């Protein structure tokens, strides 16, 4: 059912369609522990409310997806104990559960004690400053050879090769090349199509060719479509 998969989510850990969230989780690119599943349920319920009709197929699919996510998340929270707990006898499992509850109870009691302690000290003020500057550990260098230092410095003192600017220079093709070409052409024909003749040449070559062709033009009329186009 596309309605569920395209459900747009805006969570703390993720923003986008539900479908993408699923594939990220399955590819283990998004830790499920960071995803608030309750927010997804809320988003879906809101989505249903917006639609105003109860789409049973969508609800069914959503239930399946969200419950598998819940199971995955629960398993991810106790990765190494999963197998361990499954093997426990009911009696042992109850013992383990009681042990954990006791552990949490102790944490709660300790938190309570800390709260009382804070209350006792509520009226006590003291100066709190940044941590003092730790003495910087002395850097010890290995014994150095002055000759080696000199050699290293000499290397640095050598003038670097000046960079080449050859690639920046415009390379003009020899003018004579085009002059000869136009002359032989004009000997054979009285008119030719300039664009056709210079097709495939670089801009610089076309420019040189053009300058040569105009010097030949005194003898013959030549027309360039290019020129006419540029005038328009």
């Amino acid at each position, binding site marked *: 059912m596309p309605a569920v998969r395209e459900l747009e989510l805006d969570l703390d850990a993720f923003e986008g369609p539900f479908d993408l969230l699923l594939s990220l989780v399955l590819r283990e690119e998004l830790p499920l522990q960071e995803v608030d599943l309750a927010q997804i349920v809320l988003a879906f319920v809101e989505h249903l409310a917006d639609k105003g009709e109860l789409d049973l197929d969508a609800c069914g699919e959503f239930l399946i997806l969200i419950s598998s996510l819940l199971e995955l998340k629960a398993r991810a929270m106790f990765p190494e104990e999963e197998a361990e707990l499954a093997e426990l006898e009911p009696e042992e499992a109850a*013992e383990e559960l009681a042990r954990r509850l006791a552990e949490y109870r102790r944490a*709660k009691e300790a938190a309570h004690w800390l*709260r009382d*302690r804070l209350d006792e000290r509520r009226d006590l003020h*003291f*100066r709190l400053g940044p941590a003092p500057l730790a003495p910087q550990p002395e850097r010890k260098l290995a014994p150095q050879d002055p000759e080696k230092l000199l050699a290293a410095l000499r290397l640095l003192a050598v003038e670097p090769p000046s960079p080449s600017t050859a690639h920046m220079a415009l390379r003009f093709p020899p003018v004579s090349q085009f002059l000869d070409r136009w002359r032989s052409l004009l000997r054979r024909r009285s008119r030719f199509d300039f664009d056709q003749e210079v097709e495939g040449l670089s801009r610089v070559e076309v420019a040189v060719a053009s300058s040569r062709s105009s010097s030949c033009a005194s003898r013959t009329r030549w027309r360039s479509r290019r020129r006419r186009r540029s005038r328009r």
Partner: protein
Amino acid sequence: MDSPLRLITTEVTPADELARTLEALLVVASQPLPLEELAAAAEADPARVEEALELVAERFSEERGGIVLEHVAGGFAFRASAAASEACARLFEKPIEKGLSQAALETLAIVAYLGPLSRPEIARIRGVNVDGVVAGLAERGLVAEGGRENEFGAIRYRTTPLFERIFGLESLAALPRADDLGADVREIRGRLEQVAEKRPA
């Protein structure tokens, strides 16, 4: 020459002198100074420093003045007297402990008793994700990173000296014994069984 004023002795004993030096060190310090550090700075024997500290504690007590010496977070520090608390509160806030939630205190308790612990380990005990809570505690400076589970493992957290300072503990050993806290396993087990019996099969 024999005026009664001579009864007031101006002679300073070595212990007095050491006490004065310690007072000076403590007033400059922004956090508790351990005995060894005081001894090193005063260039005195730790045993003598301990004696001199008793003199300082006598002089700076709740009964005597506005400044009180306390033994906290593995060291010695001055604080304001409780009598001056209202005036202090008008001028100074206590941002670190202000607004600590129940979740934050539980997490702090778990780290203080069982740390260093990684966030998943804390989450296992509390039963919910603790990432946000731990980040908040770290921001307040009450917990800090203390190594990793293994080379590439999760970061472990421990409580900081600031935690001991805020809660007025000489050290983590000053926390009540874990065994004295909460119900024991057997009692909880009994209650679980009662619930299980009531549940329709």
